[in-house]
């Protein structure tokens, strides 16, 4: 696994390690050579691990008090908020934790897009990441259903109804998903079961994600292959551990602010109204982190094609390592790609915004243009750019500047340090 053989010093340690090499693993994790120029955008992997553990721990506690029954779910949530010791704290951490998790995952994904971390030899890491992201969306959606408020109920109805767009078997699939002829108690209990299961699947995939990462090692802001270990790297412990820890604390401060001072700002008021199958809310909107995809879904006039567009928007990411034809990883040396990158960021934000607005008039038009651009970026711009773009000279190593001294490199460095 690591470059040098590790032998524990103590006899007992050696005895144990020969039978189960956990100590070798621990040694690998602490010594793991990491590029020393990683900026703070690289701290979100650790932050995401923290988010996952937080969701699992608070979720387990909530599950001890929650009742997955259509008649009692809403009451049991209020019971948690009022009568369970610190139940309000645990529930607000869990509810806002989902949003913080997505905030971190979006930063993590867009970091990868900027620095080309998905490119060879890291395709498997990237694809596992996309699967984790899909599972996160499934878990978040089902978790939002559990309090059995109006948005829970109607969100579940809208999203499960998407499957009815599938020709021939669609209706049957929806009935099968619901466990009946409408969203009701069987739907709630199975959503609870799956909501409980998925985080552990994610945990397993996170292990694979990190394992796959430790084969080629981290990408870095200048996106070049580096010798490991070398003077371009530092051991993971203590250098990266303390830096990740510092970034994590900053993140937790933001997190705490939401939990303690605006715990309901990211949720929808309608979800404090108990689910009522006879009353449809005026606007059914998903949580903020699903809005861009919701906008894509609604921008296509045909139901089936809308669903296909929405799913493709996510799955297209899995093909990204092959759609991006450029050999250069980091956007720092790709002047054109860098511009298209920021347009894509703006495009996704616009999609998120129109996803929250009613699908009519100008909003619908904007959603359509933004959807078209989203696919254009991945299917046309990226493949063509790899051939057409004139990239800047790339340095040989992190420590040695590029031959002839690139101005752009100096700019990149100063930008990095200003972030730090």
């Amino acid at each position, binding site marked *: 696994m690591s470059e040098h053989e590790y032998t524990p010093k103590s006899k007992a340690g050696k005895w144990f390690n020969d039978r189960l090499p956990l100590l070798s693993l621990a040694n690998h994790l602490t010594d793991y050579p990491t590029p020393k120029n990683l900026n703070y955008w690289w701290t979100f992997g650790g932050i995401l691990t923290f988010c996952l553990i937080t969701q699992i721990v608070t979720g387990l506690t909530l599950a001890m008090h929650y009742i997955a029954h259509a008649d009692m779910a809403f009451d049991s949530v*209020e019971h948690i908020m009022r009568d369970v010791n610190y139940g309000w*704290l645990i529930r607000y951490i869990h509810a806002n934790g989902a949003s913080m998790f997505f905030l971190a995952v979006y930063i993590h994904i867009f970091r990868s897009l900027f620095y080309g971390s998905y490119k060879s030899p890291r395709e498997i890491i990237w694809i596992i990441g996309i699967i984790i992201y899909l599972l996160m969306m499934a878990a978040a959606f089902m978790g939002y259903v559990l309090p059995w408020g109006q948005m829970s109920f109607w969100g579940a109805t809208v999203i499960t109804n998407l499957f009815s767009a599938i020709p021939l078997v669609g209706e049957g699939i929806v009935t099968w998903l619901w466990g009946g002829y409408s969203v009701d108690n069987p739907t709630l209990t199975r959503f609870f079961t799956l909501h409980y299961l998925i985080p552990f699947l994610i945990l397993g995939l996170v292990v694979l994600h990190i394992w796959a990462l430790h084969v080629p090692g981290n990408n870095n802001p200048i996106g070049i292959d580096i010798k490991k270990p070398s003077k371009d790297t*530092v051991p993971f412990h203590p250098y990266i551990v303390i830096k990740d820890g*510092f970034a994590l604390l900053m993140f937790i401060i933001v997190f705490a602010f939401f939990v*303690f001072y605006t715990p309901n700002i990211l949720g929808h*008021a309608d979800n404090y109204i108990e689910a009522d199958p006879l009353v449809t809310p*005026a606007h059914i909107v998903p949580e903020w982190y699903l809005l861009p995809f919701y906008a894509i879904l609604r921008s296509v006039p045909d139901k089936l094609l809308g669903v296909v567009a929405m799913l493709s928007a996510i799955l297209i990411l899995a093909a990204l390592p092959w759609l991006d034809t450029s050999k250069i990883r980091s956007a720092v040396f790709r002047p054109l790609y860098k511009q298209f990158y920021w347009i894509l960021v703006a495009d996704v934000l616009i999609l998120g*915004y129109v996803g929250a607005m009613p699908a009519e008039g100008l909003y619908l038009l904007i959603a359509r243009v933004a959807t078209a651009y989203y696919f254009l970026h991945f299917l046309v711009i990226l493949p063509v750019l790899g051939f057409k773009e004139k990239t800047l000279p790339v340095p040989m190593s992190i420590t040695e500047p590029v031959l002839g001294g690139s101005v752009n490199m100096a700019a990149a460095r100063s930008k990095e340090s200003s972030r730090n």
Partner: protein
Amino acid sequence: MRNLFWISLFFLLTTNFTVLKSAEKEEYLKTNWSFKGIFGKFDRGALQRGYQVYTEVCASCHSMKYLSYRNLAEKGGPEFSEAEAKAIAASFEVTDGPNTDGEMFTRPGKLSDKFVMPYENVEAAKAANGGAYPPDMSVLIKARSGGADYIYSLLQGYVEPPEGTSLDEGVYYNKYMYGKKIKMASPLSDGIVEYSDGTETSIEQMSKDVTTFLMWAAEPHLEARHKMGFKAIVYLIILTILVYFSMKKIWSRVETEV
């Protein structure tokens, strides 16, 4: 290109703003809420007066099914004394049972009882209110997008309807209501309750008091949350500073900046 990003962000925020304004939505009335802000606490007097307004006015139609009489004496709430809360509970008739003969019976309320509901069930409530269900008030503030400001405004929003508005029997005009029509008659009028602490009973004052009470009902642990939040964030900031300097020290062994 980053400029473009910021420009589009600006564009987003401003359009959002204009859209909100262009919609025919009344600006909510504003008042100074004691519970707002990092150190926000409930005004104890307002909570006690608000409870009085709730129980004498609202409670004839609106239930509050998640609250118990014991909550009235708990820390961070109206903080009635235990004796007062017991007396309040005892003033309500609670149906209990079945007893050893299998009969249901009534008895005076205890601290552990939930707030007595005005109607047996939702259907009875609808039947008595022209088909409209008076919503349960336990989490009402959190269930309306305008929150406390909205409820506060709504209570004072009964104005003369504009020329040409036709209102059905049992429907009232309220400029803050979604669609401007509401099935609840103006619940408050000057002097409808009498405060024992001598506070004037104007509609404005009563609206503020009862809204404060509803806020507490929806968020009974708000004070504890604000208090803990302040401690937690101060602790985190100190820890972050310490970790920052540790990081600087550790990274000083490498020539790269952190």
